[in-house]
């Protein structure tokens, strides 16, 4: 690999260009008309314009990106995250053009991108999935037998339905016996099909994911990340190691992720996402992301492994060169996503010209960003403007450092979520690590209520 085209923008494009440069690889940026002066375009060795500002007319066009790679004489393409990163047709187009795609083969992206197929692969690899019936059941006795295997509480869903209609949660056999006929009858009249699916209902869970690296033959894990704090399915704060995961669960979950990678001959960096049931401690595979993740730096800070550099080395044909026992973790790392949004106006995005910028620094603080004075937050792309990532010898130390680092962050000209992130650090449930996938939205809803409950006006 001599010259790498980075098919992305923003902080991840900057991150990838830096990793490539550290390895002595030349870099080519692509830029829409809105980004010709953006940080990634300025930082790369060369830049190829790829079209108008809307991503659908530039960053999301596989043919344009492949043409740019050819034009610039690149021999490899890194897709970053988002945009075309999990599009099997893009990976195939890159390979068909005789270039190296930095990621798994198109067939693996396709396989893991299909939820049903990914679930089948997981089951074949002995990785636990949310227990449920494969086919619909049509009578009470079959439902009772199925529920005994699935385990209570059980969620009943119309086999033919969608949109949450007819969904019921039952806690035991008695409830199931009384609820099933009604639910099935409703399904029959609404959809013309009374069959029901039964699935384990997980009342409260954490979202924990395992970072993996594979070279197509061998695979290792690089520990887990806790990603439960989400708003509208967007992660807000991530950390490693996961505070709610004990050594036994960690060992079982990371081993499961490695089995899954071996099952598909995974090549590159990837992430296996799991739900961890708060009540039982059981974990269940949800899906695999076949790309680098936004939150990869927390893993890098506790292990010292440069995941993007590893992707590039694997893509150039190197074997892993690192065994599981070489991967050790130390301390605790937390990432805060700073977005150009106004948390007190319903998280309304605020594009605009950037004025003064002060970035946090000092020991064990890493700020991944594309911000610079005079730059602009474009209305066309997502609102992530910086990731402030801190490391500490333990979680309390990391959180103290985070409060300090976020206090140093200043950007004028656009609203940001910085003060909200600081407010979260001070919440007892965050400090104690006792939260689940619903905690942040519940807290935000409470916070948005008119004062009297301690909410901020």
């Amino acid at each position, binding site marked *: 690999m001599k010259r790498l085209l980075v098919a992305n923008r923003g902080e991840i494009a900057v991150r990838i260009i830096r990793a490539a440069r550290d390895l002595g690889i030349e870099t080519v940026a692509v830029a829409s008309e809105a980004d010709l002066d953006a940080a990634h375009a300025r930082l790369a060795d060369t830049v190829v314009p790829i079209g108008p*500002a*809307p991503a659908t007319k530039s960053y999301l066009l596989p043919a344009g990106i492949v043409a740019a790679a050819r034009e610039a004489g690149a021999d490899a393409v890194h897709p970053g995250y988002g945009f075309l990163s999990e599009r099997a047709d893009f990976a195939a187009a890159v390979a068909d053009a005789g270039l190296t795609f930095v990621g798994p083969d198109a067939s693996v992206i396709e396989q893991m991108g299909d939820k049903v197929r990914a679930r089948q692969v997981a089951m074949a690899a002995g990785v636990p999935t949310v227990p449920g019936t494969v086919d619909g059941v049509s009578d009470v006795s079959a439902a009772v037998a199925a529920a005994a295997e699935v385990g209570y509480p059980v969620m009943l869903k119309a086999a033919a339905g969608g949109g949450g209609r007819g969904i019921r949660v039952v806690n035991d056999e008695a409830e199931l016996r009384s609820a099933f006929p009604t639910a099935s009858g409703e399904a029959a009249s609404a959809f013309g099909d009374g069959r029901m699916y039964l699935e384990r209902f997980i009342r409260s869970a954490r979202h924990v994911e395992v970072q993996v690296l594979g070279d197509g033959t061998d695979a290792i894990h690089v520990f887990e990340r806790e990603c439960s704090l989400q708003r509208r399915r967007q992660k807000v704060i991530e950390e490693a190691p996961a505070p709610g995961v004990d050594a036994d669960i960690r060992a079982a979950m990371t081993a499961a992720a490695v089995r899954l990678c071996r099952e598909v001959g995974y090549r590159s960096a990837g992430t296996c996402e799991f739900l961890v049931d708060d009540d039982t401690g059981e974990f269940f595979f949800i899906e695999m992301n076949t790309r680098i993740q936004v939150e990869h730096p927390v893993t890098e800070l506790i292990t010292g492994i440069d995941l993007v550099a590893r992707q590039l080395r694997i893509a150039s044909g190197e074997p892993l060169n690192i065994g599981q026992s070489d991967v050790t973790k130390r301390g605790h790392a937390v990432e805060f996503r700073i977005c*150009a*949004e106004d948390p007190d106006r319903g*998280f*309304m*995005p605020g*594009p605009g010209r950037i004025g003064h910028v002060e970035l946090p620094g000092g020991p064990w603080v890493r700020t991944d960003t594309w911000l610079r004075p005079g730059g602009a*937050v*474009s*209305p*066309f*792309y*997502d*609102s992530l403007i910086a990731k402030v990532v801190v490391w500490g010898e333990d979680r309390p130390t990391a959180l103290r450092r985070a409060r300090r680092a976020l206090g140093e962050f200043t950007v004028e000209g656009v609203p940001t979520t910085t003060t909200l992130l600081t407010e979260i650090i001070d919440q007892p449930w965050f400090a104690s690590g006792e939260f689940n996938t619903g905690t942040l939205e519940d807290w935000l809803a409470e916070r948005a209520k008119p004062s009297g409950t301690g909410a901020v006006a």
Partner: protein
Amino acid sequence: MPRHEVVSPIPGVFYRRPDPNSPEYVKPGQTVTADDPVGLVEVMKSFHPVPAGVAGAVVDFVAEGDSVVDAGQVLVILEVEG
């Protein structure tokens, strides 16, 4: 009759339909209440419906569908209900 200009509250991409497969929110001649959306503006991957703001009848679209608009740019002209 007085006219009311519905402007985009934010810069972004203006859409006349909630999604590509749905009909337009409103058509010229249609009456609307103040809360009825007349369009959608996408900014930074989030979508914001634009309410009419006043009750009245739609005169015409000013902004093209799927076009880039600035904050304050006129999207739709309404005839205010007498």
